[in-house]
């Protein structure tokens, strides 16, 4: 279901226990600490969390490179900093 599984991950963040707006702020802060072209991997809950992160990262000009289902309720998303159109 996912693409390019072998990206080099620079940072990892678990936001499974977070809700809006902290999930976004933490992700953003982590991305701020990276250079363009580096990849952040985020572990989040399915549903609202995955939905918001996908939309927000796109709005902020990053690219979601891959999404992997971890288990029934969790997803692993790889975000390429500055890789989007925004």
């Amino acid at each position, binding site marked *: *279901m*996912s*693409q390019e599984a072998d990206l080099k991950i620079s940072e990892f963040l678990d936001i499974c226990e977070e809700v809006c707006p902290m999930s976004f702020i933490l992700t953003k802060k982590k991305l701020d600490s990276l250079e363009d072209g580096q990849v952040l991997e985020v572990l989040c809950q*399915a*549903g*609202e969390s*995955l*939905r918001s992160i*996908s*939309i*927000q990262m*796109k*709005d902020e000009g990053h*690219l*979601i*490179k*891959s*999404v992997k*289902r971890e288990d029934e309720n969790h*997803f692993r998303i790889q975000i390429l900093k500055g890789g*989007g159109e925004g």
Partner: protein
Amino acid sequence: MSKAKDVKKVKVTVDHHLEEGVLRKVTVDADIEGKNEKGKIDFAALRSGGFIKQRQKDKFTVRLKCPGGRMSIDKLKVAAQAAEKYGDKFVHFSVRQSLEIPTVDYRNFDGIMQMLETVEQGIASCGPRVRVPTACGGCEYNPNGITDTQRMAQESTDRFFGARTNHKFKISWSGCPHDCIKTAGADLGFQGGVYPVWDEPKCTGCTICASACQEDAIHAHPETGKPIFDAEQCIYCDDCVRACPTLAWQEGKKGHIVRIGGKAGRHPLLATIVAQFVSDEEAHTIIDTTIKWYQNAGKGKGRTRLGVILREEGMMDSYMKTLEEAIGPEKLVSNPPVPQKIVIHPQRNPL
């Protein structure tokens, strides 16, 4: 100075259960411009209202015109100064987004209006006429926003505010299906919507859209991860389009979903959808058409809301016919139900 010169003519309009056309002249004693001499004020029938009688003797709430609940900083500052000078120690935000300055003595109407005029801050309306349109933040800065509700609120204020109707007439603009401004309870409501279209070659099967859709309108194919779309479940929220990382989901039809005949109050009605994905200009045409239809259909019916008239035999058909003449048939909903009652004793009062 002669006495006559001190008496400054102050024209104020008061609409507290005063019907327009009933020219009731009430002459009162008034202190003019801080002088201790007495003057006269004529309460003529009003043009647009906005001065609302309070329970306290001589005191009125002055309701300011704030389309879409937006106010520039310079206007806000002057409003604050005006409230400080003529009002009490507070202001109040009306449920329909107007800043209100309570407890203004009617003898100060002229003073407060002159002050507000320096920043071109207008007075809102009350009574049987088109009220100031309300709106959410919309696509200008709200992440969910699909339509430019703020611009539409301003434009519809410029074009239709104050028009005389049978009863109050409330227009509202929501940017997306969250409907934060509650178009479902407006006489005429517009809510942004997008019909998503899928471009298969761009899709990588990442499944984000299936996860992003909160309406069960998208399921991920068990093998490919690609979306299986169920249009019947879709509420046009645009989440899939905004979440899709590869632009495989794109905006197809886009515009305003039109709701009509809603109201709150003692006998609430839920507005009914009559058209979908109309353009900004079509939205204005619909407002114009609806006001005219209402004025016509309401003849002789006194203070009756639009939704109540639409529930009368044959009226919904008549309205839809008029709407079709105005914007053509393509975007109309066929045979929409009449606005639905929300009742307190459902057993005794059928919907």
